[in-house]
C-alpha cells in the first residue's frame, strides 16, 4: 500500500472535500456491491477444488477477521504511541528535536512498506505480532507528524490570549492547543488507518494472513477466481474503512472549526 495517503494532508487545497458530501454515499455503495458480487459469483461459478477451498465462506471470514484485527490493533498502537510522542515533541523544551524528527518522518515516506515487512520478518520472526510491529513502524510517521504540525500551527495569538487570562501551560494544552489541533491530528490518524489496511494486505508474505492471502494464492496458483475475489474484497474493505474514517473525522472535529 501507499505512503501516498500521507500526501493528502499536505494538500494545498482541500479539493476532493468539495465533492465529498455529494458522493459520500458512493464508496459504501460500491463496497457493498463488490462484496455482494463476489459472494454471488462464488455461489454461481464452477470452482475447482483449490478455488472452492480458498473461497469457502468460513475461510473468507477468517481472512477478513485477520485483516481487520491487524488494522485495529496496529492503528490503536499507532495512536497510543504517536499522539503522546507528538505532543512531547511539540513542547518548547523539545524544540531542537523537531526538525530532525520531521525530516526523518518525511524521508520515511520513501521506504517501501513491503521492505519494512520483509526486513523485520527476516531479522526477527514472522507472524501476527511482527506484522503489527511493521504496520506500526510504517503508520506511526503520519500520526506523529500531523500531531506536531497541528499543534505548531495553532494561532499564536490565541495561546497568547489564554496566557493573558492566566492559564497555565498544561491547561492551555488541553483546553486550547489540543482541541484546535484535532482536525489535523484526525487527518493523520485517518491516513495511518488507510495505510494499515493497505500494508496488511502484504502481511500474507510474513504468515500473518489477511485478505492478501487470497490475492497471493490467486497469483501463485494462477487462479483468477481467487485472485479477483481477494482483490475486490480488499478494495471493498478499503473503501468502507476510508468512508467510516471520513465520517468519524467530521463527527469528531470540534464544532466551530
Amino acid at each position, binding site marked *: *500500500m*501507499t*505512503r*501516498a*495517503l500521507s*500526501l*493528502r494532508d*499536505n*494538500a*494545498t*487545497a482541500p*479539493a*476532493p472535500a*468539495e*465533492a*465529498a458530501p455529494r*458522493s459520500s454515499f458512493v*464508496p459504501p455503495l460500491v463496497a457493498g456491491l463488490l462484496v455482494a458480487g463476489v459472494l454471488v459469483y462464488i455461489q454461481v461459478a464452477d470452482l475447482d477444488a483449490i478455488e472452492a477451498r480458498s473461497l469457502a465462506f468460513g475461510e473468507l471470514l477468517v481472512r477478513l477477521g485477520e485483516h481487520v484485527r491487524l488494522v485495529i490493533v496496529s492503528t490503536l498502537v499507532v495512536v497510543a504511541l504517536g499522539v503522546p510522542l507528538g505532543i512531547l515533541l511539540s513542547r518548547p523544551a523539545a524544540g531542537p528535536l523537531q526538525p530532525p524528527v520531521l525530516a526523518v518522518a518525511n*524521508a520515511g*515516506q*520513501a*521506504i*517501501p*512498506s*513491503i*521492505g*519494512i515487512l*520483509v*526486513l523485520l*520478518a*527476516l*531479522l526477527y520472526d*514472522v507472524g501476527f505480532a511482527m506484522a503489527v510491529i511493521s504496520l506500526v513502524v510504517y503508520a506511526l510517521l503520519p500520526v506523529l507528524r500531523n500531531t506536531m504540525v497541528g499543534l505548531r500551527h495553532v494561532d499564536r495569538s490565541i495561546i497568547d490570549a489564554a496566557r493573558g487570562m492566566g492559564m497555565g501551560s498544561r491547561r492551555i494544552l488541553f483546553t486550547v492547543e489540543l482541541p484546535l489541533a484535532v482536525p489535523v491530528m484526525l487527518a493523520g490518524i485517518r491516513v495511518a488507518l*488507510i495505510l494499515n*489496511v*493497505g*500494508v*496488511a*494486505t*502484504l502481511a500474507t*508474505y*510474513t504468515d500473518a494472513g489477511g*485478505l*492478501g492471502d487470497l*490475492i*497471493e494464492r*490467486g*497469483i501463485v496458483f494462477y487462479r*483468477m477466481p481467487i*485472485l*479477483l475475489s*481477494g*482483490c*475486490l474484497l*480488499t*478494495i471493498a474493505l*478499503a*473503501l468502507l474503512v*476510508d468512508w467510516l474514517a471520513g465520517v468519524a473525522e467530521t463527527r469528531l472535529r470540534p464544532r466551530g472549526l
Partner: protein
Amino acid sequence: MSFVDYVAGNFEIISFLLLQHLQVVLLAVGLATAISVGVAIGTERSPRARSALLAVSGTILTIPSFALFGLLIPVFGLGVAPTILALTVYAIFPILRNTVTGLEHVDSAVIDAARGMGMSSGRLLRIVRLPLAWPVILNGIRVATIMTVAIAAIGAAVRGPGLGELIFRGLARMGGANALNETLSGVVAIVAVALLLDVLFVLIGKITTPRGLHA
C-alpha cells in the same frame, strides 16, 4: 558476507533492477502527468466533472496497491503492463490536484490584465496560467514520483520489473545466507532512488521556475 560485499558482488544485477525501477516510475509519472494536465485543462468549463474526477482519483489512492496490481492481472497478465498501469493510476491524484490548484490560484488581477490586453484563452493558458502554475504542478509531480518509487516495489509481487524483486527474493530465501542482504539492498536502493529523484526535482524546480517568480 557483509552487506557491502554483497552489494559489490551483485552490483550488476542491482544496477540493472535500479534502472528498470527508474524507467517504470518515470514512464508512469510521465503518463500520469499528461493525463492529469489534460484532464485539468479539459474540465475547466465543467467544475462538476472536475471535482468528480478529483474525488475518484483521490479514492483510488485508498485502494491497497497489492489489490490494484492483482486486479489488473486477468486483463493484462503478469509483468510490466499491470505495474505501469497501476502506478500511473496512483500518480494521477497528486498531479491532478496540484494542477487544478495551481491553475485556480493564479492571481486574478494578472488574468484580468491579460484578458484586458486581448489575450485569447488559449494564449492566456499557454503564456500566463501554465507558467505561473508550474511550480505547484511540478511539486505535484515530485510528490507523485516519490510515492510511485515506493509503490513500484510491490509490482514485483505480480512479476513486475524493478527493485522489488530483490525484496521478494530475500523473502523467498528466508533463512538462507544472503536473504537479508538481498532484501536490504532492494530497500536501500529504492530509498536511494527516491532521494535522488527528490534532489533532481529540486534542481528541475530551480531551473524551470521562471526567474521573475524567484525575485
